[in-house]
């Protein structure tokens, strides 16, 4: 599905990602775990086409990643990114205009379920409401690859549960999800493979269930060991 081949990303003299090679399988939910500044966001942004690797190559479905692949890749950043003039209904129109895989009906239902309405202005929303809107828009896309960067960041407990429920509803064997988070215990129940990143380098990729069965370690314990 997605392959990073010997990727290095430099910002000036700083190496955010160092010679990283990683292969993601179709239909798997990945947890991307690491400390702040470990390179998780950079890794996601490269796959989303928002920044280019300094060295190395990214392959999507076997071919070099290009701008057309953004039609099959949905990215949700940790920062609010909707245009400041946009209301919820403008976000819906925007996604429908640019992404053929966007399901308007599902978006409307999700918005209602999350307690938002179409006249609300994105720039006036709290961080929790903004996270709900970002999740609703991103998850209403039937994209093959979903990249969710800190989807639970700055969100209260109830909103967190609602976003997790949304993620689980959208997971299936044809879609790959990559979720970066610091809230390990929140995602432990549904993450299949955990990718550990430290200082821009891949530490390990671990199947959570296999690890639990063989060593009895929880994801949190594994995180402490690896990091």
């Amino acid at each position, binding site marked *: 599905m997605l392959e990073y081949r010997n990727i290095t990303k430099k910002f000036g003299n700083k190496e955010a990602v160092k010679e990283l090679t990683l292969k993601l399988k179709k239909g798997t939910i990945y947890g991307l775990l690491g400390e702040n500044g470990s390179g998780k966001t950079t890794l996601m942004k490269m796959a*989303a086409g*928002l920044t280019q690797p300094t060295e190395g190559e990214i392959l999507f479905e076997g071919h070099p990643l290009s701008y057309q692949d953004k039609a099959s890749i949905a990215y949700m950043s940790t920062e609010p990114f909707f245009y400041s003039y946009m209301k919820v209904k403008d976000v819906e129109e*925007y996604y429908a205009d640019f992404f053929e895989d966007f399901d308007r009906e599902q978006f409307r239902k999700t918005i209602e379920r999350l307690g938002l309405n179409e006249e609300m202005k994105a720039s006036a929303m709290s961080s929790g409401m903004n996270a709900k809107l970002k999740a609703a828009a991103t998850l209403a896309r039937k994209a093959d690859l979903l990249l969710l960067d800190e989807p639970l960041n700055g969100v209260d407990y109830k909103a967190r549960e609602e976003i997790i429920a949304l993620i689980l509803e959208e997971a299936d064997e044809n879609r790959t999800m990559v979720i970066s988070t610091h809230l390990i215990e929140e995602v432990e129940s549904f993450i299949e493979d955990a990718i550990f990143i430290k200082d821009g380098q891949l530490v390990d990729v671990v199947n959570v269930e296999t690890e639990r069965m063989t060593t009895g370690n929880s994801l949190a314990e594994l995180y402490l060991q690896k990091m």
Partner: protein
Amino acid sequence: MGKLMKYEWKKQRTSRMIVMVALAVCVLTFLGGMLVEKDALMGISATLLLVGSYFVVFYMGIESILILNRDLKTKQSYMIWMTPKSVWEILGAKFVVAIAQMFFVFALYAIAGLLCFVGTIQYVGELGNVFAIIRDSFIRVSGEGQLIAQIVWNLLCIFVGWTEVVMVGYLAVIVSRTILRDSKYAGGISIVAFFVITFIIEKIYNLISNVLPNVEVAGNSFFGVGYLVYYIIICVAVFLLSGWMADKKLSV
């Protein structure tokens, strides 16, 4: 590209609304002054229209550059860069809309000016005579049959020159945000970069224009052929450079 332009167009709608309201106020004040025969009121609104037309058209261009800088700084740039569109379509849409908005505002001012002008002529009377006097004076300066050609040529050259300024502004922001990313100094550095790039472009033009023969079009027009050709080449070069940087180096 049409959809990209649609959303770029929306970004400056507040400014356009302010311009339209200000214009409506000016025209109504002017016509009101005419009705109550207050020349001072007419004079003030006509002056505001004239000064405003000059300032606002330039402001719309500058605002589009400021919006690009703001989008990159606040991550609203994700919106456009996460769409399955090439960097050439994205930048192309931004440039076309920036220029179209300046045209739009210019057209609004032209309509408002025309309204006031026709109103004045009606007010003074002798509509046909005044038009004839204005036309004759233009022809005396520019030569018979050259009037329209000269106006079109000068407007075309001003348009290309201003397009080049806006494109250099975009390039300056992209260069600055590529090097400094989220630094608080990136905005300031982009202004410095703008003046440096503009200085280089102007310096090269001065060197070239001294060497090349000055071929003029449409009589005594302000701009020679060399001016237009040079700035069209610069526009293409700046667009290609901006696109390459945005594609390969810029982290949005």
